[in-house]
């Protein structure tokens, strides 16, 4: 049997070892697997490198959702906008039920080579009553497009206010 002091020492050593392992693991994981949320405006401004995984969120731009098939596998293309810029997105897979034009959406994926389009691996739908993901809400606020204080988010039609040419121009500029 060992003294209380010695036992406490053992416990402290075990805790210290465990905690330092945990901290080391977390630091490594933080460095390699944090993903940033970006709004279309930020993507257009910063041009994230191809293959770097991040979350892209915004409003599904009206009249841009196109479904197609490539080698028997279906895919969907649409554009995500925050009113300042709009990014084309390609998603292969089954879209969640709440996905529709003019609605807030968060996608996880990376830019394709040549910065052309966002290749989404996951499209998330929220089950909250207002269907507006918080990140998207923030992005819209920053873009000055919507403030929750002044009522519900703009509807599908309101997001058609820029022509594709205008959006291209703002992307390039």
């Amino acid at each position, binding site marked *: *049997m*060992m003294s*209380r002091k010695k*036992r406490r020492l*053992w*416990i402290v050593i*075990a*805790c210290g070892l*465990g*905690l330092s*392992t*945990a901290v080391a*693991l*977390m630091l*490594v*994981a*933080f460095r*390699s*697997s*944090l*993903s*940033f*949320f970006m709004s279309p405006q930020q993507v257009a401004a910063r041009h994230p490198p191809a293959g770097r995984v991040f*979350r892209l969120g915004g409003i599904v731009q009206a009249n841009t959702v196109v*479904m197609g*098939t490539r080698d*028997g*596998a*279906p895919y969907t293309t649409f554009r995500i906008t925050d009113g300042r810029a709009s990014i084309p997105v390609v998603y*292969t*897979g*089954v*879209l*969640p*039920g*709440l*996905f*529709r034009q003019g609605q807030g959406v968060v996608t*996880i994926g990376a830019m394709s080579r040549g910065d052309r389009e966002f290749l989404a691996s*996951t*499209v*998330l*739908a*929220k*089950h*909250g*009553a*207002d269907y*507006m*993901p*918080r*990140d998207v809400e*923030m992005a819209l606020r920053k873009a000055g497009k919507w403030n929750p204080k002044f009522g519900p988010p703009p509807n599908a039609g309101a997001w058609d206010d820029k022509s594709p040419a205008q959006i291209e121009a703002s992307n390039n500029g």
Partner: protein
Amino acid sequence: MIPTLGNFALALALAIAVAQSVIGIAGPMLRDRQILRAAPALAIGQFVMLGLSFLALVWAGVVSDFTVRNVAEYSSSTTPLFYRITGTWGNHDGSILLWCLILSLCGATVGAFGNSIPTSLRSRVLGVLGLVSGGFMAFVIAVSNPFARIWPPPLHGAGVNPILQDPGLAVHPPILYTGYVGFSIAFAFAVAALIEGRVDAAWGRWVRPWALVSWLFLTCGICFGSLWSYYTLGWGGFWFWDPVENVALLPWLTGTALIHSAIVVEKREALKTWSVLLAIATFSLSLCGTFLVRSGLLNSVHAFSASPDQGLFILVLLALTIGGSLLLFAFRAPVLAASGVFAPVSREGALILNNIFLCIIAAVVFTGTMYPPFLALLFNRQISVGAPFYDQAVLPLTAPLILAMAVGPLLSWKRAALLPALTKLWFVAVLALLVFGAFILRGHFVAALGLAGAVWVMLGALVDLAERIRLFRIPLGQSFMRLFTIPRAAIGASLGHLGFGIAVLGIAGMSLQTHTIRVLNPGQSIDLGGYNWKLISIKPATGPNYTARDATIEVSRNGHLVEIMHPETRYFTNQKVKTVAAAIRSNGVRNLFATFAGDNNSGGGEFRFNIHPLAPEIWLGGLIMALGGAISLSDRRFRVGAPVRSRLRRPSGSATV
């Protein structure tokens, strides 16, 4: 009329809760028998009032009383009856009322069945419970009253969110909340013990059954939630490391630590201060689990929406409850003297190791969950900590836990030798290594680790049970009889560990899943994982408040028909929302998963097919874990109640051990 009565009953319940907290906490100091007896009655009264209030809200939903804003916004005249009822707690305001109802149920249970607890301790426990429930009822009445009216009422309600129109809503929230809220009893016991300045073996014996009940509900609740998320598209599968999932996992981790450390308190009178802290931490995390999600601080696919003033109220309440109890702990903890000595290699030592690792994992998950909101608050940067972070940081930490899990129960109390325990496990280790080798050769590293760990834990638990019934050392019949004579807590513990192993098996199996996405026309088929999936037809169908497109898929293997599946897409006419209802067929060791994404313009449709090996084991394991908890709960020492010694003790606030 009825909603007004419900509102009145709610206000009455608040008044009773205030009385309960004052009388309950101050009562023992007055040394008046009548006052000591008042707290249980008040607790039961509070439950009755809240029950009536909740029934009134359900009634408003059932008869579609659209003057009640809650009903108008989340129900409609076309919503089926079942979902009009479940819709009561399918929204922010109603779900908090349910939360309060369960909290008052906990108080009423202690009031009605806690006769073996000393009256002064019981009175204080009920007082603390009254304080907590009073705070949250004030929240309900002040800023999120589900009985708020609107005039003029709309003709039809907005309807329940189509994704929530699911049987999962009927079981998942009530069970999960019971788990969350149940820990309030352990919390109240901890705070009451701090006020009294006394924690002994008897305390451990009173707290453990309550902690065990809430733990098993929480386990079931997380299980159902995970299952619901599994078959709902867009929620990221059975476990997504989403903030809302994490905050449910946090109290589960510390609660698991608590039910283990309470054993040490009860058997060896050690780890007392630590257990008190764990009880406080577990309920604090439960509170965070329910309310941080609603404060708008955390960002999640599962979150409810809440207004900013509600968020502030919640944060203040959380700070008061958690900060207050921790402050009390800081002042009073030195009073709780430690006793009981043991060597590092012993049952106590193993349980401490379990506690250390469970709490470290909880700390990692907590950091990962809270880092993004803090970064957003302080630096206005939006980041997300997703599954890869947790896979990298948490999974390595579970490895020592899994390793120790099979060994710990084989060690004896106070002082043990590692070698005899390990020799009992040698063939389990060999089997685990064989499994590891078999899968590593096929190039599945993660699956190999997980499956080997699962085999190690499952067989380790069985070895523990076999040791206890002395299998193969005494005649089989006698061994069988021993199953009924050894403490049920021991059987429960083995089952709990077995269940955890099975769940690990399922999670590891999930990493071997295969899937494909295809456009099929009727008559066409594809092959996936040895199965042939053939689209027969796509037909229209109608539901109570939606229209659907129903696909018929024949799944066959080697020419033999295995399953006929009917994945659907549904269109909810009221909300103009499309949802995807997946079809899942299970044979117990693998799931076939088919989703129908929608028609294309040539008479066919877009499909996703998945094969999830061992997926059913995830939830089966969870349920077995909960079953282990239930069997442990029926142990004789809990049924006969607390030791007589403490029942004879005079109620007094000054006694210290």
